[in-house]
């Protein structure tokens, strides 16, 4: 009987972490205040497992921590030199795959991709840029879509489908040509029922989905990740970006 009250635990980098039955490694870690880098994970949605930033080692074998159910006694390695190196490579891949010109980006300072790059000490993109041709969509009266920065995490797809019930976003293409599309025959956002109060408006970790005419309301230098690194403020509670889009 006493076992019932005993907290079940597993280990992350040698530290005891409690968990509730049914939790994933990511959920348990974040609940316990242990940061594991992530981009496509969001506490409100079913884990996706695509960005792979959250890759850890479980009893010596690599695994995706946002989709992996915890079991008592698991030994997780996360902040090792090897894993950090792999995460840096993944970030570099995401940077060269799109067109990210941070200095001119409205999301700079509030962007999770950028924040993670700082946090993991990514000094250069390393690989040759793909320079994809991704025209922006400014057809919506209040919303701008800059596909150049999309990292294909599908958070907007999930928010628009599961919460807003509008299915404004989806993915098309395959492999390196995979891309975000919107739900209209013309292919333009202006012909969808997207609105600025949609949850899809606020989930994008990077600077794709932007509200028009509110640019740079918070000056660069005072934004979410400008002063405190992402690994020290990772709750997905309403943040500067959310407030700004409302």
């Amino acid at each position, binding site marked *: 009987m006493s076992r019932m009250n005993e907290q079940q635990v597993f280990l992350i980098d040698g530290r005891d972490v409690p968990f509730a039955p049914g939790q994933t490694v990511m959920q348990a870690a974040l609940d316990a205040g242990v940061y594991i880098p992530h981009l496509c994970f969001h506490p409100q949605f079913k884990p996706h497992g695509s960005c792979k930033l959250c890759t850890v080692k479980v009893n010596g074998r690599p695994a995706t921590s946002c989709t992996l159910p915890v079991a008592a006694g698991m030994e997780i390695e996360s902040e090792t030199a090897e894993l950090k190196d792999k995460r840096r490579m993944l970030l570099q891949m995401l940077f060269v795959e799109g067109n990210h010109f941070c200095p001119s980006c409205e999301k700079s300072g509030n962007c999770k991709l950028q924040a993670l790059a700082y946090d993991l000490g990514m000094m250069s993109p390393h690989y040759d840029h793909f320079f994809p041709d991704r025209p922006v969509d400014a057809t919506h009266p209040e919303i701008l879509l800059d596909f150049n920065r999309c990292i294909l995490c599908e958070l907007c797809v999930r928010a628009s489908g599961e919460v807003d019930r509008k299915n404004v976003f*989806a993915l098309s293409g395959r492999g390196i040509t995979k891309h975000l*599309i919107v739900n209209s025959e013309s292919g333009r956002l202006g012909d969808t029922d997207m609105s600025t109060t949609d949850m899809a408006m606020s989930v994008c970790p990077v600077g794709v989905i932007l509200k028009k005419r509110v640019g740079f309301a918070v000056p660069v230098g005072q934004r979410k990740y400008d002063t405190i690194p992402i690994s020290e403020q990772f709750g997905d509670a309403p943040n500067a970006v959310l407030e700004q889009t409302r």
Partner: protein
Amino acid sequence: MSETDVIDAILDRHRRDGTRLMQILRETQEQLGWLAPATLTRIAVAIDWPRAKVEGTAGFYSFFHTRPLGRYRVLWSDNITDRMLGNADLTRMMCEKLWLEAGRVSEDGLVSVDTTSCTGMCDQGPALLVNYRAVTRMTPQRVEQMVELIRNEAPLADWPAEWFAVADNIRRGDILLNNAMQPGDALRACVARGPAAGKEASSNDRSWRETVVANPGPALALEEIKLSNLRGRGGAGFTTGLKWEACRSASVADGDSRRFIVCNADEGEPGTFKDRVLLTAQPDLVFEGMTVAGYVVGATQGYVYLRGEYRYLLDPLNAVLARRRAQGLLGRGIAGQAGFSFDIEIHLGAGAYICGEESALIESLEGKRGVPRNRPPYPITHGFLNRPTVVNNVETFAASALIALQGGEWFRGIGTSKSSGTKILSISGDCLHPGIYEYPFGVTIAQVLPACGARDVHAVQVSGPSGICIDETEFKRRIAFEDIPTAGAMMIFNDQRDMFEVARNFAHFFAHESCGFCTPCRVGTSLLKNCMDKIADGHGSQHTMNEIFQINRLLQMASHCGLGHTACNPMFDTLKKFRPAYERRLKTLDFEASFDLDSALAQARQMTGRDDAGSHLETQS
């Protein structure tokens, strides 16, 4: 009939069921030439899916087009074996004669010429698809005639029939390819193992499974499969008996007791064509194996997921299914047993290698983008429509039928102790007799090579690009799960072949076929392709090779599915075993030339029509 009538008729035939979207899209495209924006909207409304989701499916598959690609679409199979048979020259010739650039549509909208991943005709290449119909054995003469026919807009039905002939090329048969089983023999054997007059099912509509307790037949058939030690022939080698048993005993909480049997005939691994031959020469054996599986697990519906490249097999296979229904071997009361119901339907893929991966296959079968699912849960408990589902390879089902008839003990006596039975090999490349060879497991590479007339062999790629590349020192190794496991492909390269080009071809294949779900595979396979192209262009260095090793480690560690895990194998193996093929091309062994100023000026030279010494930055040595 107007376009909308055409679409509506197709939609009606598929009961406006979104899970049938792949078939709806293919049939619509076959009739209308392409999938126009308004077409997708109409389909989306009818099946009650968000339009963007329908477009997402259409955009995933190589064989669906959401813009017009010509009334004739020619796709040259671009496996390394087609390359070795000269397809590049033939493609160039075709493009020149049509005044066309590869990958572009002619201005009059008549024709486009492009390449596609291996079409499974490696023993009779160079091969191509014209409007998704397979053509084999291309020659310069055929190219010339084909260009004429296209220019004259001759319907495919009027093209020479022999162009579309696909040979079986069975060079060595064994228990599977030489079997003399009559349709129904295995099913009757299954039924006979149960009590003579098995307990009646309460209703024809109830699943056979509900009578399983009363009737020991299915359990006895399962015992034979388990006893045989049959392991999956699709690559991973999972024990078939355990898979069936897990599906059979998977609990269904919500009262929906449906289970499904899926035959994986996606056969996308370049160099593999044995499933095509099994489905041509032994379709009854395959369907019978699926029916046995249905009997064992209590499934009433089976699907064959047939790769789009094998579209030409659809009508003949449907004819076999119709005959089997007439023979009482499909449908209700199979083999005279009330309550034994099972039927099979064929679903066509549309040009996506990833759909061979079982969970991506199931997504595709449900009408979605072919993206591998997060596992667990596995298909045996949550497969098609989230129901318990058995997915097996074509050859696995064929072997199951024989085991059901002749028993597990018999099967176990063939092959090696860890790998029972036989393996069908698809042999292509540098040999006199490419084709199909069935051998008991345990056969060595050294035994197979002379049998197919291969001489001066330098390397053999076993199990396709995702398999392994072996050199002369390894020819004593055996085809077996405990030594070299294989899904069936054997591509042979003689000592004149450049193993770097082989690996480069495979790198292009993986980049083209990555589903794009996860970051490492989506971006990494393209980076690898670029590394290989850079080396080929003479701009590679030691750094480029290190880069390949680095990306390999990332792909192994962080990829979502087997495609990513194996995408680096060809580079890794050839770098280890045929390193000189790479080093010969490196600009220098330790300097990286990431930007070549002179070649950057090439475009300016072309525009100004200059190529004199003064227009070059450095004189090439």
